[in-house]
């Protein structure tokens, strides 16, 4: 019965799931502005998924969960609209000569929602907890210790130079949770931060209500008295809820919904223009046959028509990808990724056939119809050059395990949305590759000394030009070695009733423009109705 249920639900989710087909596109309607912001009122937001909890050390928030995290907590740093980390709960930070020590100064006069003052000890405890968590620890590998220097300063000791450390603190890793949460076994359901809203009530699967934090340290914020967040997993139901007026605002990465929203005149739509998008791609296991043969990887890349995938499976929303960064990102440089060339692909396949016999490959995809549609399109495209593909459907949690263990040949995947490329370190570094069967974060098992060297250079330099050149090398080597057949950049959009303002992003502490929505996540502090 359970299997039948899985199948039935998979059918229903047909239209809501996003595969590798959606891509970044030009923004559509610009949000309106209607004079000075007005305080008060209630906002209802429809999000794509329920969260498992709100403790960073115990829970893994997706885009929907991050919206709540950003409402309840503040981070030491936040990214601005140019992807530069700007102080938030920190007032600034200094480093030693070789960037192996960072001293962070904490903002004075800030209190948590339970009345505890924010101080250096609270920050020290947070960083230590995040470092020792199974969920977040691997990303904070460079940290070896945290010391309290004075009541409002902590020193972070690192095992290697890390000029990008403030960028780390501008991600969720810089989230500051109240010390009381570390003693609470049920902290995921009782989050306490310094953020603009506090958790008022939460009925998982139904609704989560946030109430204004009256003691918020940024005076005048937030604007709404209360915000209700409702999980509506089906993308079409979410859009219908907005159109019917049941909710005031939604986020979506569903290609068809975004295409529909582009034609909508009675709603305002904000497509993401800042931050880094995730990419949809085919990940190839370079650690075992058949994709240990570069010729076959190249044949696949040359035979793939990503625009057709976008047009058919992604409702025409977005643009093709040639690497892990999209045009518009400060890290983007053209990678030299091969253009579609069916004749050359066919010739490579002929060579392989002559040596090894028929070219049969297996492509894994999740069971949702949108992803299967992408898989089917690719199968058809690859068959044009003589590659026979069998599609294997795998359920989501097994899917991740297969990638971790290298138990796949090709697999449809979506990743690489970090704001600083150093945060992508483990996915591409040969240190994190392992033979099939052992868990490895370098899922493609792609080992390249050039990438390793470039990553070290990017990690250890504070010169933006040097870093950009280093990551250009990463992009170029990925385009040459082809562990990934790039398809598209994922597009996220916010849509709201016309009287909701602030969709484009708020302001930094110093009043400059803050970043806009980022991979479906957005700040609710400066949203208002008027």
């Amino acid at each position: 019965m359970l299997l039948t249920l899985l199948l039935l639900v998979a059918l229903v989710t047909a239209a809501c799931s996003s595969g590798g087909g959606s891509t970044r596109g030009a923004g559509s309607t610009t949000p309106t502005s209607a004079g000075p912001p007005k305080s008060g009122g209630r906002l209802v937001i429809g999000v794509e998924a329920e969260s498992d909890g709100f403790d960073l050390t115990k829970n893994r928030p997706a885009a929907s969960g991050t919206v709540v995290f950003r409402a309840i907590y503040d981070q030491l740093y936040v990214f601005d609209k140019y992807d530069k980390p700007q102080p938030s709960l920190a007032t600034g930070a200094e480093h030693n000569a070789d960037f192996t020590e960072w001293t962070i100064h904490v903002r004075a006069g800030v209190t948590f929602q339970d009345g505890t003052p924010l101080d250096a000890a609270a920050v020290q405890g947070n960083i230590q907890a995040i470092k020792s968590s199974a969920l977040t620890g691997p990303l904070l590998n460079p940290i070896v210790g945290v010391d309290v220097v004075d009541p409002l300063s902590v020193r972070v000791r690192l095992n290697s130079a890390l000029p990008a450390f403030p960028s780390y603190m501008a991600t969720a890793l810089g989230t500051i949770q109240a010390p009381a949460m570390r003693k609470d076994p049920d902290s995921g359901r009782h989050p306490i931060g310094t953020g603009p809203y506090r958790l008022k009530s939460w009925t998982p699967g139904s609704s989560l209500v946030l109430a204004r934090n009256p003691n918020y340290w940024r005076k005048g914020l937030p604007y709404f008295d209360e915000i209700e967040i409702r999980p509506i997993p089906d993308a079409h139901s979410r859009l219908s809820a907005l159109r019917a007026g049941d909710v005031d605002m939604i986020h979506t990465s569903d290609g068809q919904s975004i295409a529909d929203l582009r034609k909508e005149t009675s709603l305002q739509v904000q497509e993401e223009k800042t931050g880094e998008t995730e990419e949809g791609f085919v990940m190839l296991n370079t650690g075992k046959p058949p994709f240990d043969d570069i010729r076959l990887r190249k044949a696949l890349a040359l035979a793939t028509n990503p625009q057709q995938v976008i047009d058919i499976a992604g409702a025409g929303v977005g643009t093709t990808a040639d690497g892990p960064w999209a045009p518009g990102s400060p890290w983007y440089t053209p990678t030299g990724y091969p253009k579609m060339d069916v004749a050359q692909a066919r010739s490579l396949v002929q060579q392989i056939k002559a040596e090894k016999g028929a070219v049969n490959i297996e492509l894994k995809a999740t069971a949702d119809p949108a992803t299967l549609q992408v898989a089917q399109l690719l199968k058809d495209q690859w068959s044009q050059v003589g590659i026979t593909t069998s599609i294997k459907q795998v359920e989501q949690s097994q899917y991740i395990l297969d990638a971790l263990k290298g138990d796949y040949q090709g697999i449809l995947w979506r990743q690489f949305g970090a704001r600083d490329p150093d945060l992508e370190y483990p996915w591409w570094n040969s240190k994190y590759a392992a033979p099939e069967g052992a868990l490895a974060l370098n899922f493609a098992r792609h080992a390249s000394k050039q990438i390793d060297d470039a990553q070290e250079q990017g990690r250890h330099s504070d010169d933006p030009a040097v870093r950009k050149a280093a990551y250009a090398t990463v992009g170029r080597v990925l385009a040459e070695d082809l562990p990934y057949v790039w398809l598209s950049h994922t597009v996220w959009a916010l849509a709201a009733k016309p009287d909701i303002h602030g969709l484009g992003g708020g302001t930094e502490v110093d009043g400059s423009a803050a970043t806009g929505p980022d991979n479906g996540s957005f700040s609710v502090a400066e949203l208002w109705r008027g």
Partner: protein
Amino acid sequence: MRFVRRQLLHLVPVLFVVTFLSFLLINLLPGDPVITILGPGATQEHVTALRKELALDEPIPVRYVHWLKRIATGHLGQSYVNRQPVLEAIRQRLPTTLELMILAEAFALALAIPMGILAARRPNGIFDRVTTTTAFGLLAVPNFMLAVVLVYVFALHWHLLPAEGYTALTQNPFENLRHLVLPAVTLAAADVAVYVRLLRSEMVTTLQQDFITLARAKGLPDRRILLRHAFRPSTFSLVTVIGLNLGRLIGGAFIVEYIFALPGIGTLTVSSIFNRDYLVVQGTVVLIAVGYVLANFLVDVSYSFLDPRIKDVRALT
């Protein structure tokens, strides 16, 4: 009383079989709750530690026995994913699903009974033929398709009813009803068709029996014959099907809850299956199994009300 006791005793082996099979099935499905929790950044060391913490390193039969011991003391355990007690999760979600199912059955019966009776009054008449065609139409439309059409017409076009969401009955009864109308109608549609066809067929048979001929010979009005004499004996199959239909209704509720984003047992079970949240799945399976057996037990009891001869037969055995 002896009949009630015997029926309740049946529940025990049914629960053992159902819970063991579901425990086995969900554990045999590919996937791992530890990977679901830790995500793509999982390291071998952390995977091993969390598996031990959640007692997932023990063999399935041992875990099942532990679960049985816990359930004997009234504890269904905690969700692996959000650490919410399973009982609390069920308590929060059960009212929505119960309300949805009761309303759906109420809608289905409110439509099916008059339609079935009127169709049986003149078999192959115009009303009967229209009813038959409508019933086949309703059966042919999948409920997720019907849901989309209903949302388009009543929520998006006419703005009469909400497209999704839920308001608790205790919070605002009117809003509660508004939120449940479209899901309940979606769920009820296929049942209307089945019930109409079933009642019509039973009524046609009943109306050919001698006691109806006698009633007609006595000059009783048509309405009285249909409602007082023919209806009750014709509901035997209908009541049986309502009981058996509970399983289909629960399955339908899972899909309808998902489409309308209702916080019910269906969405809880489905998300728990995807997350491999074994204890929550077990909790909901126990609830569904108990509910199913109890509903069919009530159906058995109702037979004696509908036809007292049943009780006499049972008393003799």
